[in-house]
């Protein structure tokens, strides 16, 4: 493309028609006709513009007439060229501005696309963060609950252990005293009855205090008052404590069949595992009602430890099976369950690197299998 500043040729400034009209007009003014051409002819004088010869003027009656006519054409060209230069410059700058606008437009589009992508990524990150927050919230809730149970258990253990201790020990001493009193009393039928009865009363009381002591011990295990957060756990003993607690909750009316194999101790959080086992047993107990039974089996192999808790209760309806692991999902009446039992169970098992599978058939029963690796993180 020509630059606006390039020296114009005659054809750039005037059309052939205009050149002809100009020649005719000048011819009318001169004594002889004149002719404006781009090529040099005989006896022609240059028509100059901007120090540039843009054409030639020939004809006319004399040299001075040609000079005068050529000067007039040069003078006219100045104004024609002014317009031409301004128009060319305007065209150049408009084109440059348009190209610049197009470039900016392309840049804007690119940046818009980039921001859209960023915004999508941001949405995804927000979703992920929300999921993390939800999970943390739930863990916090559960750990707070566990802590309060722990505090309660610690309080109970402390307050009950001592009196139970001296009651139990006093009762045993009292039974010895009764044995010692026996030969000193007159041997009558009334006395024998009374002493026999007395001895039985003391024996039953001793049995009762032993049961209290055992419950307190179970509570302590459950709440892991005396255990570090992360310790080697004996899953069988955790399971037995949980069974005792469930039995206590259901007045020892549950039929629980225990089939416990020999297990290696595994690293883990005893209190959380206890809570998990308790939750699973509690679910089973609720499912069987009054006349069912719960089977608890443990076994170990190379892969790890497998705990099976199986009941022949009501089972889980197909319609809600996909929801049972959801937090705050519960079928129980308001106030009797938070809907976190299975959620916490599954999360705890996952946290220990294990798997929890649930298998259920309505009206036939539910089987939960819990697999924990023998070595965490292996």
């Amino acid at each position, binding site marked *: 493309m020509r630059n606006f500043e390039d020296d114009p040729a005659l054809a750039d400034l005037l059309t052939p028609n205009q050149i002809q009209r100009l020649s005719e007009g000048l011819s009318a003014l001169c004594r002889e006709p004149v002719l404006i051409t781009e090529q040099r002819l005989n006896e022609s004088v240059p028509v100059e513009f*901007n120090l540039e010869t843009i054409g030639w003027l020939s004809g006319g009656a004399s040299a001075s007439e040609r000079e005068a006519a050529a000067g007039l054409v040069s003078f006219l060209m100045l104004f024609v060229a002014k317009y031409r230069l301004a128009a060319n410059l305007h065209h150049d700058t408009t084109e440059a501005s348009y190209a610049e606008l197009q470039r900016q437009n392309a840049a804007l589009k690119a940046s818009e696309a980039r921001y859209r992508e960023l915004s999508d990524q941001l949405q995804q990150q927000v979703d992920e963060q929300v999921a993390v927050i939800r999970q943390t919230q739930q863990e916090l809730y559960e750990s707070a609950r566990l802590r309060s149970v722990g505090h309660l258990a610690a309080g109970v253990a402390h307050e009950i252990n001592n009196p139970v201790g001296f009651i139990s020990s006093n009762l045993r001493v009292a039974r010895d005293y009764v044995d010692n009193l026996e030969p000193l009393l007159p041997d009558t039928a009334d006395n024998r009855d009374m002493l026999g009865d007395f001895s039985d009363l003391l024996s039953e009381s001793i049995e009762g205090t032993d049961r209290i002591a055992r419950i307190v011990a179970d509570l302590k295990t459950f709440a892991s008052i005396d255990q570090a957060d992360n310790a080697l756990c004996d899953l069988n003993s955790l399971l037995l404590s949980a069974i005792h607690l469930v039995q206590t909750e259901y007045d020892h009316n549950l039929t629980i069949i225990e089939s416990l194999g020999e297990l290696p101790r595994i690293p883990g959080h005893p209190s959380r595992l206890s809570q998990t086992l308790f939750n699973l047993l509690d679910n089973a107990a609720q499912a069987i009602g009054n006349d069912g039974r719960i089977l608890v089996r443990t076994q170990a192999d190379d892969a790890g430890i497998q705990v099976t808790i199986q009941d022949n209760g009501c089972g889980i309806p197909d319609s809600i099976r996909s929801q049972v692991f959801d937090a705050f999902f519960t079928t129980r009446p308001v106030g009797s369950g938070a809907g976190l039992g299975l959620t916490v169970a599954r999360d705890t098992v996952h946290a220990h690197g294990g798997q929890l599978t649930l298998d259920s058939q309505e009206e036939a029963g539910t089987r939960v299998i819990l697999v924990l690796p023998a070595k965490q993180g292996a």
Partner: protein
Amino acid sequence: MPDFSPEDNKLALKVVFYGPALSGKTTNLMQLHSLLNPERKGELMVLETRDDRTLFFDMLPIGLRSRSGLDLRLKLYTVPGQVQHDSTRKAVLSRADGVVFVADSQIAQQDNNAIAFGNLEDNLDKVGLDIDTVPMVVQFNKRDLPNVVEETELQGRWAGTPWAPLSMASALKGEGVIETFRVLLDRLYTVIDSEFDLAGRHDIDRTTFIRRLSASHGGDDA
């Protein structure tokens, strides 16, 4: 860049008068038109103004023909100084061989000088030229007005730049205009001579170049 067409043995050079609005670029050109009497001088074209302000550009062609037959042309342009005409300034500045930066000496105008100088640097960069290498002279105009920055202060401020010493002018009175132009011709010659061997091939040495392009009506005082 110089436009050399071997078939016509013609060398066209372009000098652009740049600077902030109302600093006197057109006045410089008008004074050159009336004061200069070079070998060849065309008409001063003042294109389209509004309220006496340059809308497109002004142009004055001058030239000389060497004994070797070289047809040397120098086209002097001004740009519109007003901020909104930046694309026009850029178009006029493209392919420039030399620049005269016309600054306003008034104390109140120093910020505008700086802005226009930054704009010149940007636009030179955009048209592929480098402010550090393009032949350039900086003129502080309007020395006749009161409230101007002292010359010693200006010279001191610019002492460390490639454009020292500065030229002082009062274009309205015709003072310093030709002197500024001669400094530019001197700096322009260095660059053009190294590319086209003006002295060797065309018998145009530095003195001839300056004297014949800036001869004034007042006589040969170059």
